[in-house]
């Protein structure tokens, strides 16, 4: 079927300024169109329901080497959560690190249609793409980890921004990547010898460059290349008391590079980087200071990294941070360093209501979301699976929409955290419009995905319909109803296909893999000549075998941009 008409829903389409008006959405050949012949279209009656663009997730670890090591490490995580095969779907397992098919289905069930994996080790890019090919329904993309690549460190050390830009363009092409990911800049290189950097101005051992210089350098590169997203930064010192100061410094360090107030940096899973206090005993929230800064500046976007009280699996490229987490928790630990590029660590973890620190972390993420006024600057994530599995997003939505829901959580958390938390003092309750911003419109805007996150003519027909009636229901009083509605979309439409109906998967088309193709031919040729010379020295694989060819992607979708380097 090629045309669809969604009738009478309450439409929330923030990018087009639609705030819950009752209207029809017409779809033809996978795109949203002005009008269709009603008699030939399949009609979806959405009366009494809300209609939003398909959900967009800017940061969720769903595929690749690290995620898969997490799956391998944790059979006990899978035993209790299985997905049986159906005539339409493949079988799989959850819980915190679902198998690939299950990942696709579970996102689709929640009305999500685009998900970004934020940590692809370039050398293992093929692995990420192989898993993407087995992750159905949703569109995907991956951010290569570039903040500790030797080539980057060396170019930036010599202040060769243009060459660095050409290199990054080459890397995006080679890895079929989407954005520049920076994790604990310099710290991962130091971790190669079991060390770390202490703050944004602590020089990287053996390289004589500071994290500040890496962040600024790559921010300039990002601009030169006109990349659709900003640099995507996991700060230094993540997960350590007092780190909010370093986070403020990180946001400040690119202030002078901002043009026309456009975003220049994304601080990811900000909760983990908004810790105050000197140690775990005096641990406190730094959210207020960060929110204040973000409210006063336009060049920053954040995502929450909301804690969920559950057992999950932490996994980041931040090797030294994961080691600390292993020492703190005593849980089993995986470390996986990647030559010339990056590292990774995995530790199973349980967030407990009664733990002072964990309860504070819950509060910090809530404070960030509630104190930052502009929803276009902060996005809903749990840094899946680090702060909790993505399947808990509907719960987070219910907390944001309902003070009552937050109070219920607060009642049950650690006493000391209860007293310290700012959450009880905040009345703000998100509207559905704001929810649509932080779960799709804002994220797609920050990602520069022109055809996603909105329902304007020409957009991809990725649509979520939830069984919630804002006219008859006082949402703030019914958080559980809200959660249930967002957990099981009434319909999820992907490229014009109905993929989910009443929370059940009914069809499983493959999704695209986006990658950014920077056009800078001359610079690229020159850089590849230089790379070729050094490559054998730096890597144990051949230069020719490193790039992932486009045909490797099940449905490649390149986003072409013109760079300012020639």
């Amino acid at each position, binding site marked *: 079927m090629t045309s669809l008409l969604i009738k009478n829903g309450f439409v929330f389409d923030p990018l087009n300024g639609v705030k819950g008006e009752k209207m029809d959405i017409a779809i033809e050949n996978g795109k949203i169109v002005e009008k269709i012949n009603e008699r030939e279209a399949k009609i979806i009656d959405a009366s009494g329901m809300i209609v939003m663009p398909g959900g967009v997730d800017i940061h969720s670890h769903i*595929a690749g080497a690290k995620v898969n090591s997490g799956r391998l490490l944790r*059979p006990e995580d899978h035993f209790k959560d*299985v997905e049986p095969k159906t005539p339409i779907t493949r079988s*799989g397992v959850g819980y915190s*690190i679902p198998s690939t098919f299950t990942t696709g289905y579970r996102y689709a069930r929640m009305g999500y249609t685009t998900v970004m994996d934020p940590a692809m080790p370039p*050398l293992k890019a093929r692995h990420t793409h192989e898993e993407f090919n087995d992750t159905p329904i949703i569109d995907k993309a991956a951010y290569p980890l570039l903040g500790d690549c030797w080539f980057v460190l060396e170019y930036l050390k010599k202040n060769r921004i243009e060459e660095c830009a050409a290199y990054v363009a080459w890397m995006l092409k080679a890895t079929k990547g989407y954005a520049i990911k920076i994790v604990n800049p310099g710290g991962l290189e130091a971790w190669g010898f*079991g060390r770390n950097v202490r703050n944004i101005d602590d020089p990287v051992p053996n390289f004589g460059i500071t994290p500040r210089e890496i962040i600024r350098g790559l921010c300039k590169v990002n601009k030169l290349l006109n990349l659709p997203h900003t640099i995507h930064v996991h700060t230094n010192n993540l997960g350590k008391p007092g780190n909010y100061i370093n986070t403020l410094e990180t946001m400040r360090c690119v202030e002078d590079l901002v043009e026309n107030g456009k975003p220049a940096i994304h601080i990811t899973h900000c909760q983990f980087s908004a810790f105050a206090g000197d140690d775990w005993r005096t641990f406190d929230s730094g959210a207020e200071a960060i929110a204040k800064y973000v409210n006063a500046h336009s060049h920053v976007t954040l995502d929450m990294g909301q804690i969920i009280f559950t057992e999950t699996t932490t996994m980041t490229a931040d090797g030294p941070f994961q080691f600390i987490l*292993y020492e703190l928790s005593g849980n089993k*630990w995986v*470390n996986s360093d990647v030559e010339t590029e990056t590292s990774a660590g995995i530790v199973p973890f349980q967030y407990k209501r009664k733990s002072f620190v964990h309860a504070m972390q819950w509060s910090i993420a809530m404070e960030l979301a509630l104190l930052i006024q502009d929803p276009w600057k902060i996005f809903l994530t749990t840094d899946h699976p680090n702060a909790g599995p993505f399947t808990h997003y509907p719960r987070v939505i219910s907390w944001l929409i309902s003070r009552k829901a937050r109070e219920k959580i607060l009642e049950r958390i650690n006493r000391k955290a209860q007293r310290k938390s700012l959450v009880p003092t905040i009345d703000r309750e998100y509207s559905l419009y704001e929810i649509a911003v932080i779960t799709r419109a804002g994220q797609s805007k920050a990602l520069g995905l022109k055809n996603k996150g909105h329902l304007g003519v020409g957009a991809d027909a990725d649509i979520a319909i939830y069984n919630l009636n804002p006219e008859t229901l006082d949402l703030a009083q019914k958080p559980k109803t809200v959660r249930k509605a967002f957990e099981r979309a009434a319909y999820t439409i992907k490229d014009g296909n109905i993929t989910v109906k009443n929370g059940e998967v009914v069809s499983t088309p493959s999704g695209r893999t986006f990658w950014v193709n920077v056009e800078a031919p001359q610079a690229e040729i020159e850089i590849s000549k230089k790379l070729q010379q050094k490559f054998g020295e730096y890597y144990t694989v051949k230069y020719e075998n490193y790039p992932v060819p486009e045909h490797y992607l099940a449905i490649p979708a390149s986003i072409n941009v013109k760079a300012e380097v020639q």
Partner: protein
Amino acid sequence: MRVVSNVTCPVCGSLCDDIELIVENNHVTKVRNACAVGEAKFLAFADPKHRRVKPLIRKNGELVEASLDEAIRRTAKILAEASYPLLYGWSCTSTEAIRVGLELAEEVGGVADNTSTVCHGPSILSIQNVGFSSCTLGQIRHRADLVIYWGCNPWSAHPRHLERYTTFTEGRFQKSIWIRYLTKLRALIGKKKAQRAAELASPRKEVISKPERTFSLPPTLTAKQRKMIVVDVRKTRSAEIADYFLQVKPNMDYELLQALRMLVFDRELDLDEVAGIPIELLEEVTDVMVGCRFGILFFGLGLTMSSAKVRNIDAGISLVRDLNKKTKFTIMPMRGHFNVTGANVAFTWQTGYPYAVDFSQGFPQYNPGETSAVDILARGDSDAALIVASDPVAHFPKRAVKNLVENPLIVIDPQVTPTSLMADIVIPSAFVGIEAEGTAYRMDRVPLPLKKVVEPPATCLPDEVILQRILKEVRKLKGGKAA
């Protein structure tokens, strides 16, 4: 004549990707850069002695040639009708084929298991118990000043491991005078070859004096260069070039590892020796381990298959983990078949589990010891088997083999093996990495492309394609959705 460079060698887990092949008339005639094992594979894979190119079906006790269509139809019928089929092998094919194999196993409600079940299975169980600290091989080249090989002999099993990734390499932070030594050695060998060639060419067979030079290591080598420790039950070639060789008594690896763990934490050991090794030597080795900048412990089947198995690896991983409190230390299993790692990787992303995956309940279940191939066969539970690129008849215990061959047995393999000789249906396939492309994972889980350098015989399709056709046929039989 055609030169194909940067070919990945589809033989061992080192997955060297710098092989250069000369191809003439669809034959590989010359191999550069590979070790003897790799070279032999490229030159001799098509040898008709080890290969049949037509599908075979057993009729009245005899394997007779059949069409591919018939072989596939029959295979599909057997699998679709079986109540608990076993789909085993997977370590010598591409991840692309493995993905289809898993879908097939799920479709027929069978068990998918790969060869790690009989090699590094204990290592995997151990990782699931305690985790592990690892890295890619380049990290070792650049950083490791201490390399330990425990229960493995890279010199013969992974011949280029030392020269490409560890002891003989040079990296950013780890210079090597081995390099110079090796270059000299190569030059000498080259000279010898040239001499021999000259001898052969010269009409008068003059005796050219050949000074028999044995190379002893330069004394500085042992001083501050990258150190190498070998732990094994016997003195192997690898042990001969090591700085320390610890000859552990058979089946006493666990005791030795635990002793080292004690010593790492500065505990006194009131013993003269452990596992046959004097305590003074152990203390010295411990100092080397604690004192290094970056250490790596490679372990092989000598450790996983000696008596304590999982406990051994637990202890090994724990030793490495403990060492991380003092310095940087990593550990890695030496994987044998070129894509056994890829089998674990693909199994895991599709099902959550690395091997021994049972789909009989409609979802993946994992319980090695129960859902693993050998155990299923030993219990006599399976009623049909599909073997892909593997030879269980030669490697499984007798009781398991008996059950395997008593039930319908289908083999997809490019070469003739003891298993294929016992099969009821044989579908010869293209050699992946030579006649078909795909992806394989190196022992450090770095994915590499496998190349197609020559055309396969017309009747030999890639594993992936054969499996897809079987799957399609199975679905037709079951009347479910078409593939």
